[in-house]
């Protein structure tokens, strides 16, 4: 019997890998093993629509395509370990699965605040559908919400909670929200717009402890000040889910290092021929920018990296893999669209529009554009996209 392709991780990356394998002609067995009970669904609505209304799994689930009807989905099952030398993974039920090819798509899990009284209820993170449904119950009008972290997820949750009538305070260590990667000027403007909607910001501040006996009642700041709250949302970054891969010959510092074909790299630098990593958990160099390997947590990366793996698997690659990173964010009526790796920039400048209205910023490294980001002005932003195509 042919050993299957086993995909570990049943989110967007796992689904897209299965679809792409079929699209590029692989007709053999595919097993996808994932920890969540839900079939693959789209995560971006979790910080917006799913919090704002009674949105079910059905509304965010990816449509199932006929080509993947025969894929064996093993959901609600966590893979605990892998033995790459012998080509097996072992799950939480104790079952060992042999693979011909392994695709690692285990993504990220949220970092949580490390405090002494960590057992309080009312603490939330937003990564899974169940997380978002749990938070939604607590976002009642008038509820005092502290959002810890001022990145994209923190800002989106703050905007949604504010729209629901919550009293929202964002607490974060940076100077302004999403300074990285947006740059200070755009970040200041974003803060101004949030403040105009009634969100408070306590920046350059961290939380040292929580107040409360059974439920969270407040956060203790490093200044000693206390902010009382009913709900705490922790949006302070992520950990890569790679513990299950330890003990194998893999480079696992900050995700799974891969080569340009998304093959997992051994500590010797040689790549495993039949082990790939995709999505948030993969760290790879993108020749559009340079030869430094980075993890890119943008929504397009699972789809792009899955397609690359399927092409490699089918022997149908054409040229180097150089996906154009793209992201978007919706906060109130602010619609941000960006291409490139903005965080690489040493210079950021307004290239079109008016910062208080619709605008486009260009991001440059040593004079070469590495990113573009707009509020509105879609056609202008899209016009810059070709700057990132591999020449």
């Amino acid at each position: 019997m042919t050993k299957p392709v086993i995909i570990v991780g049943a989110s967007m990356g796992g689904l897209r890998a299965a679809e792409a394998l079929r699209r590029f002609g692989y007709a053999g067995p595919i097993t996808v093993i994932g920890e969540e009970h839900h079939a693959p669904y789209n995560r971006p609505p979790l910080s917006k629509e799913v919090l704002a209304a009674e949105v079910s799994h059905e509304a965010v689930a990816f449509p199932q395509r006929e080509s993947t009807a025969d894929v064996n989905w093993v959901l609600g099952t966590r893979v605990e370990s892998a033995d790459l030398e012998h080509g097996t993974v072992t799950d939480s039920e104790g079952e060992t699965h042999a693979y011909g090819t392994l695709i690692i798509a285990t993504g990220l899990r949220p970092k949580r605040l490390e405090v002494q009284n960590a057992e309080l209820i009312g603490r939330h993170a937003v990564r899974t559908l169940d997380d978002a449904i749990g938070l939604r119950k607590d976002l009642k009008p008038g509820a005092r919400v502290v959002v810890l972290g001022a990145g994209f997820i923190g800002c989106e949750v703050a905007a949604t909670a504010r729209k629901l009538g919550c009293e929202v305070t964002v607490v974060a260590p940076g100077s302004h929200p999403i300074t990285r990667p947006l740059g200070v000027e755009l970040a200041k403007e974003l803060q101004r717009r949030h403040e105009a909607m009634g969100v408070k910001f306590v920046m350059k501040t961290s939380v040292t402890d929580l107040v409360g006996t059974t439920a969270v009642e407040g956060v203790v700041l490093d200044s000693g000040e206390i902010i009382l709250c009913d709900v705490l949302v922790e949006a302070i970054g992520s950990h890569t889910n790679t513990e299950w891969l330890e003990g194998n010959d893999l480079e696992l510092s900050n995700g799974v290092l891969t080569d340009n074909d998304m093959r997992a790299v051994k500590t010797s630098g040689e790549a495993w021929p039949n082990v790939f990593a995709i999505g948030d958990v993969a760290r790879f160099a993108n020749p559009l920018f340079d030869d430094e390997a980075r993890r890119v947590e943008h929504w397009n990366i699972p789809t792009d990296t899955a397609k690359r793996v399927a092409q490699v698997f089918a022997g149908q690659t054409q040229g180097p893999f150089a996906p154009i990173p793209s992201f978007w964010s919706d906060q109130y009526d602010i619609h941000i669209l960006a291409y490139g790796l903005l965080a690489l920039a040493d210079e950021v400048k307004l290239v079109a529009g008016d910062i208080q209205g619709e605008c486009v910023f260009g991001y440059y490294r040593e004079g070469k554009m590495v990113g573009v980001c707009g509020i509105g002005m879609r056609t202008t932003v899209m016009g810059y996209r070709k700057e990132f195509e591999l020449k």
Partner: protein
Amino acid sequence: MTIKIEVDMTKCQHYGQCVFEAPDIFRLNADDKLEYTAEADDSELANVEAAIDVCPMQAIFIVK
């Protein structure tokens, strides 16, 4: 044979990602709003599926 395409305009935020995947089907007009051709030849299926995949709002559907 043809395929029928539908965009849920209550979901669409006009991000225009579909335009890169299926330029003969999707476009942004002068006001940066999405416009699309609702019926296309079968040969567009792969492009439209790619557009479905990249739609941030998951607002594009092929109608059976």
